[in-house]
């Protein structure tokens, strides 16, 4: 039962979600744009900051919850999704956001993504994908292109990159989008749409690292090359078409909603609630649980 109250929707502005903590990001970091887009999306949605839980892992982008006025939880590398799911299951009335980088999400955290999708818990997961490990000073990431020379691949990466879009589409995610701070309106809009989507929503953001990234990844270059999926006539209800377009990840920058299931499926928390409602009447108090140990006398 929700005892949460909120200011009426029209009263919240982006400023209500901005905390006083000064970001540690380098000037020009793409994450500045991402957090702005999040402020705007939240303002449009109008939930009170104390009803929002924002969970992250470890990395530059994972600092983001501290820059909002929501309840924040900066957890451990790669494990934000399980923790966020625990929060949502404990209190399904909260608005739960999850964020991190491409390493946090698809390297160490890769094993958890599939299961967050399977449970379809209503969480919005924003990955700031810059194809590098910034916080630890420039190592290879799972989305780095083959042959890239980095601090930990001085002689060139010998691996193919993960395709985060295909990854989540393949696992059956019901809402998949990609954005960039190079198109702030678009980004804010798709974050809002993801939050509104009643299930697990994934938003990949091409948020460049000005310190360790490549020239062709910077916002200026993105602006020149990006193409909206809408302009391509893509139908977001078509998963196969979305996967086809997603294959171009790394070569083409497509922005917008790749996939949005027209008939949202059940969420784990809704099913849990239904089960609790159905089972509640069979017991009177917590002490009843001890009855299973009673021996029936003859």
């Amino acid at each position, binding site marked *: 039962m929700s*005892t*949460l*109250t909120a200011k009426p929707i029209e009263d919240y502005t982006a400023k209500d979600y901005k905390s006083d*903590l000064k970001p540690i990001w380098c000037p020009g970091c793409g994450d500045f744009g991402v957090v702005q887009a999040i402020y705007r999306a939240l303002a449009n949605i109008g939930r*009170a900051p*104390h*009803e*929002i*839980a924002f*969970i992250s892992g*470890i990395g530059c982008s994972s600092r983001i*919850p*501290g820059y909002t*006025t929501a*309840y*924040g*939880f*900066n*957890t*451990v590398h790669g*494990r934000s*999704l*399980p*923790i*966020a*799911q*625990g*929060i*949502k*299951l*404990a*209190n399904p*009335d*909260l608005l739960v956001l999850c964020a991190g980088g491409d390493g946090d999400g698809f390297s160490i955290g890769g*094993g*958890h993504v*599939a*299961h967050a999708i399977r449970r379809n818990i209503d969480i919005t997961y924003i990955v700031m994908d810059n194809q590098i490990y910034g916080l630890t000073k420039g190592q290879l990431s799972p989305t780095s292109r083959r042959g890239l020379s980095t601090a930990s691949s001085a002689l060139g990466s010998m691996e193919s990159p993960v395709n985060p879009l295909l990854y989540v589409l393949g696992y059956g995610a019901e809402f998949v989008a990609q954005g960039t701070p190079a198109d702030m309106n678009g980004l804010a809009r798709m974050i809002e749409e993801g939050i509104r989507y009643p299930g697990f929503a994934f938003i990949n953001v091409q948020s460049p690292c000005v310190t360790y990234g490549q020239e062709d990844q910077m916002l200026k270059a993105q602006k020149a090359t990006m193409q909206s999926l809408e302009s391509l006539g893509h139908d977001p209800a078509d998963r196969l078409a979305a996967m086809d377009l997603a294959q171009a990840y790394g070569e083409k920058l497509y922005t917008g909603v790749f996939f949005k299931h027209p008939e949202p499926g059940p969420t*784990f928390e809704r099913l*849990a609630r239904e*089960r*609790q409602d*159905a*089972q*509640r009447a*069979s*017991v009177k*108090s*917590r*002490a*009843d*649980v*001890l009855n*299973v*140990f*009673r*021996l*029936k*006398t*003859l």
Partner: protein
Amino acid sequence: MNTDLVIGMAGSGGDGIVSAGESLLTAAALVGYHGVLTKSFGPQIRGGESSFRLRLCTEKVLSPGGSLDIAVALNWEDFLKFGAELPVGGRTTVVYDSNTNVAPDRIPLVGVVPAEVIPVPVEQMARETGGSDRAKNTVVLGLMSGWMGIGRAEVIAGIRKRLSKKGAEIVERAEKAFQAGLEYAEQHPLKTDRRMVASAAPTAKFVVDGNDLCAAAAIVAGCEFFGGYPITPSSEIMHFLGREIWKYGGTMLQAEDEIAGVGAVVGASFAGKKAMTATSGPGMSLKTEMLGLASIAELPLVCVNVQRGGPSTGIPTKGEQSDLLQAAFSAHGDVIRPVLAPVSAEDMFPITIEAFNLAEYYQTPVIILSDQEVGQRKETAEPIDASTVRILERRTPTEKELDHYTRFRFTETGISPISHPGMKGGNYLASGIEHNEQGAPTANGEMHSRMNDKRLKKFDPLKQRRDLFIVEGHADAPLGLISWGSTAGVAIEAFHLALKQGVRVKLLVPRLLYPVSEQVYQEFFASISRGLVVEQNHQSQLYRLLRMFVDVPRGVEQLAKSGSNPITPDEVADRLRQISFALQRDKHQEPSEA
């Protein structure tokens, strides 16, 4: 007539061995006996060897006992696989299936001459009455009922309870098989009388095992979230909550792995709910990082480790007490988290309640060190009155404190009120990174020291909790006996045996293992010049732990065995007697004052 009997039986997987043991326990409990039933299996998932040992007593017992009084072998190959778990001695009555075609004087028990050896046509009787050899275990129940004088009606009730789901025909055939065994016993009385003294008036008893009781206690404590992963021998805790927790408004999640399981628990706790996870050694290793996160973020949670043989995959189906040092120290950084250990399955209830109370009060992960023995053996227990249980809640901020709320505010106790999402004004940033009082990240040395102080010193009052120790015997006794966990049950019995034998010994059983209650140990050690620490692990982990924090007298010895090597009350009592003789001899040899 007997007041205390141990029955052991072994056969192959499909013989219904365990089912027979449970029927016997149920029947005995219905007429007021106390019992401890231990099951043991071979390493195969299905079809391997299986056994039980059942101790029945007119008084409360905390250990599975020593040598078998009655040993039943449905086949010798499987019986022998259990080695020291089914110890046959000179006082054992050995019963075996005559279809093994082994002569009574040729049974393959090397170096043992049992009190009596009886071949019985068990399989034959099973086929004649039940139509198949699946009724062998029921025939054996009839034999036991006849020879031990445990009421037929109760055993039949036990059989009916176990087989009721399989239909009337099966139940009828089972009753015939039981009758056949009973009649055989009546026609072939034993040389050694194995009848049990009638118990006192039957009192309504509980029959519990540590895993199920832990899960039930969690619900009584107010647990609303369980996140975990299957692992032997702890899965039953998750299964129980998966059946029951919804009725109480809670959620159970079998996560994708051990880390996600405890991760979801950390999240649920952050969201304000009491939460628990359960695992065994390998899972504890995986959970190390998450537990550290909970420690620095000062989030309550309960983590149950049902210990098994280690290291690594170890021996999944046998208990051991070798995760103590891990429980105390396996966190990078300076961390203290309370570690509790129950001494029996029955003790799992108060220990689990205590774990939740400590977790919520001190805002910390709390580890419960159970083990396969306690987790999976069945015991009779006194009925539990949940209304007498004291439950603590976490300290949440008042209205005033929510005005300029500071999550990690330095207080006199080190405990600062904790908010959760949904609480207006309570917004804060929780993190694994070191932080200041407001929760903002910091690398400042002074703040780090002060935060370490806060997080560690808040546990000081816990070290004064004498109620978490079992202390018995004369305060001046020169010989001290220490044990913990399921082994403490053996030690307690040995303690009483030794007292009867005139040994001047006192007993200390910590149920709080960490932080180490230095003062309690100092007081105990004050008068002793000799001692014995008994535990089921190779390195004497409790002994080592005590030596880190306490001045342990030089004369304190260890009785430490790796898991799967049963420690018996007799063995411990013998050792106490030896040490006692040595004590007296030393005293005698002391130079007299010239």
